[in-house]
């Protein structure tokens, strides 16, 4: 299969690759770029473990072709901590015991970052609806909701920092 050359920015770094047109974005990240923080949990775009930010919007990277991300700016879990300092969402997931096996966590954090970007002060119900595309089998979501509430509070109190992907 003929390969296509793509260029994109991942967590602020310019990257490029020759890829088959059918290559999924999640496989580009994981298998080509070695960014294995983004996970794969299903084959029907229901679980959200592969959630990343594509030009600032949350997408399930198992449902995006790598070639269609040509020229785009991507944000993944690896780009969330800046200068060694955890993003408030990462800190909050740790503080609130918002993870157990950790497999859904990167996708959940990326989705939560998109949610808080859209709605900096969500109600509990809005948080629950905002992460409905991300499945967690361990936590029962109670502490994930608390973590997102904690991060929302901290982000509101801080001066705005540039988002990882933009």
């Amino acid at each position, binding site marked *: 299969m003929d390969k296509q050359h793509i260029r994109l920015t991942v967590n602020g770094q310019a990257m490029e690759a020759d890829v*088959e047109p*059918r*290559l999924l974005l999640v*496989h580009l990240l*994981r*298998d080509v770029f*070695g*960014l*294995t*923080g*983004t*996970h*794969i*949990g*299903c*084959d*029907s775009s*229901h*679980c959200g*473990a592969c959630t990343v930010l594509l030009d600032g919007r949350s997408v399930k990277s198992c449902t995006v072709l790598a070639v269609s991300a040509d020229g785009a700016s991507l944000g*993944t*879990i*690896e780009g*969330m*901590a800046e200068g060694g300092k*955890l993003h408030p969402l*990462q*800190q909050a*997931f*740790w*503080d609130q*015991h918002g*993870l*157990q*096996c*950790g*497999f*859904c*966590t*990167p996708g959940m*954090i990326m989705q939560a970052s998109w949610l808080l970007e859209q709605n900096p002060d969500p109600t*509990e119900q809005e*948080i*629950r*609806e905002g*992460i*409905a*595309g*991300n*499945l*967690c*089998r*361990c*936590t*029962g*979501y*109670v*502490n*994930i*909701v608390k973590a997102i509430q904690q991060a929302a509070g901290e982000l509101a109190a801080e001066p705005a920092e540039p988002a990882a992907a933009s």
Partner: protein
Amino acid sequence: MTDVKVTTTPEVAGMGHSMKRKEDPRFIRGQGQYIDDLVLPNMVWMDIVRSPYAHAKILGIDASEALAVPGVLAVITGKDLEAAGLHWMPTLAGDKQMVLPTDTVMYQAQEVAAVIADSRYAAADGAAAVYVDYEPLPVVVDPFKSLEPDAPVLRPDRGPEKANNHIWHWESGDREATEAALAASDVVVEENIYIPRIHVASIETCGCIADWDPVREHLDLHITSQAPHAYRTVVSLVSGIPEHKIRVKTHDIGGGFGGKVPVYPGYVIAVVASLTLGRPVKWIEDRSENLQADSFARDYHINVKLGATKDGKITALQAKTLADHGYTDAAADPSKFPAGLFNVITGSYDMANAFVEVDAAYTNKPPGGVAYRCSFRVTEAVHAVERVADIMAHELGQDPADFRFRNFIQPEQFPYHTPTGWEYDSGDYPAALRKAMDIIGYEDLRREQAEKRERGELMGIGISSFTEIVGAGPSHTFDILGLKMFDSCEIRVHPTGSAIARIGVQTQGQGHETTFAQIIAEELGIPASAITIEYGDTDTAPYGLGTYASRSTPVAGAATAVAARKIRDKARKIAAHLLEASEDDLEWENGRFFVRGSPDKAKTIQELAFAAYTNHPQGMEAGLEAVDYYDPPNLTFPFGSYICVVDIDKQTGRVNIRRFVAVDDCGNIINPMIVDGQIHGGLTMGLAPSLYEEIRYDENGNNLAGNFMEYLVPTAVETPAWETDKTITPSPHHPIGAKGVGESATVGAPPAIANAVVDALWHLGVRNIDIPITPQKVWAILKDKGVLE
């Protein structure tokens, strides 16, 4: 909230501290290492060809087109494995299972061939290009029909003397006495209850990398396993590779819940492929493969009878059950317990008579009855007794709470011997139910319900007062494939006072790196932050049976405390030497020994550790380490009372869980934050089969829920905001008084939900609704009863 006792400072973080988890820094940064994250030099990929038929003869397999696909290196079929005697393998239950079929497929999505290629995509291309010629055979999906005399015999390999589909019969208790007691009872209620087939659906699927090194003649097996040592032994026995030439490594595991206990055909094929090619072979299951082919839970058809006096005192319980195991019994139950611990079915109630019998049948389905956050049939038992107890209470016109209080085993009756042979270690059942009722405001809810019923609104309140049975188990009774169910811990204290401990159990999210460090911190006073916990490498960790059935804390947790106490015993001798005192004159407190009466004459554990390597008494071995293989004297019996309040939408039949209060008692608590997290997750996996999840098959054996579009894992929207609290009744026989908690909520929640729904509908003449209680089922009932709006 219940106060958990703590005796250590937050810096030491022994038992009772909600210490933040030591494993989280890597997970929140995306730096966990799960199986598919691992890439080895020269690695190749494997993909599996699966059967579209539930039962069919294989007339031929044509791999020529697949072998022509660029990148494809090999195609492996059952005939290839047969040459090495590897086409069948033993299951953990002592039955056998095909690795790859040579002539017949037994369920839809069964492995038929494997394609090895130099990339993930090429392997998938190759799998799509393998052509298999099938001749469909009659399909058996109903276990009752499977046992009829004219049913096709599914497993002719069992020989002519077993020319039927009956696997085994198992019974427990006294049939005659129970039947006599039921006949003499004032009231007997009887119900048929089906517990549906479900799948654990951990968000990470199963997978492995088999890495055979032909020069060293050594196999590294990187794998998603909850029981790495057992895997090593099984792989050695099946393959003939000497056990010292096999190293099983697990890395991080993205959820297990029992689904990562069995050895799956894909693992064995990957090992064969690596042996053949001399290269590392990676196999990662897709979600739809995971939901169609590896292993499933429950699938229990239970007939249960409960007898009582007219005053509401239980006299006897009898259960007759048919278990659908699919085409092979691949359950992970202890070998003497083919129906697991189902005979814990007398639950939290004092009764003199009980009898249970279980028959198991083959059908054209993948293995059933394996695991779903409870491997040993406790969920099925608790559902049956809690449902039938509720039916009895309603039948007698008694409040379900009053009925339970009347029948609870009382605190002073422990240790309590059940009529099916268990010795419950400790419990205070009335206290847990009373606490749950107080939190939820039970009396007010009953008043509200009565008012609403007057107005035609449907509101229900459901109780579940369950008793769990975990911590398998004592070696005189418990083994899997002959391996006794002890577990282990090895601790080494370093000269500068920090430590490493290796354990025989395997976290899949439970937080062992934190909680096992806290146990040692409690026992030795070394800060938990200065203790590394390792597991999941069979070359370094002591042998253990792994993590499932809530056995980590009851068994390996006990081993950890005992190993730490062995270290303390040696430290005492060193302290006596350094302080020039008699050992008997030394007292231990907060991580130090001091001379009785002279508290400033003391040596800390750190000083003693240093001395163990620099100034140990002559004649004593240097160093400060210990190992313990703990053989528990009994199981532990966590319990709890859950109350669920539901409102039913009379237009759609939708059940809305308004509140759910869970009061759990898991004995002494190591880390309250982690215990609550376990309960939240367990409740959600109790909710799932109650309202949403079911793996159903059509008459041709097609799996109707084989992907996440059809299999409804609850999202944050469906999941209620769980309310949790505790009572604490320590286990009298466990070294730290703990009992285990991972599965309690999954076991306890479904009957609370089902009881609440039936409670809302009882006045309309509804006695039972099988889970999952879908809007369709409730809608049909509302329509039938003429109350649909």
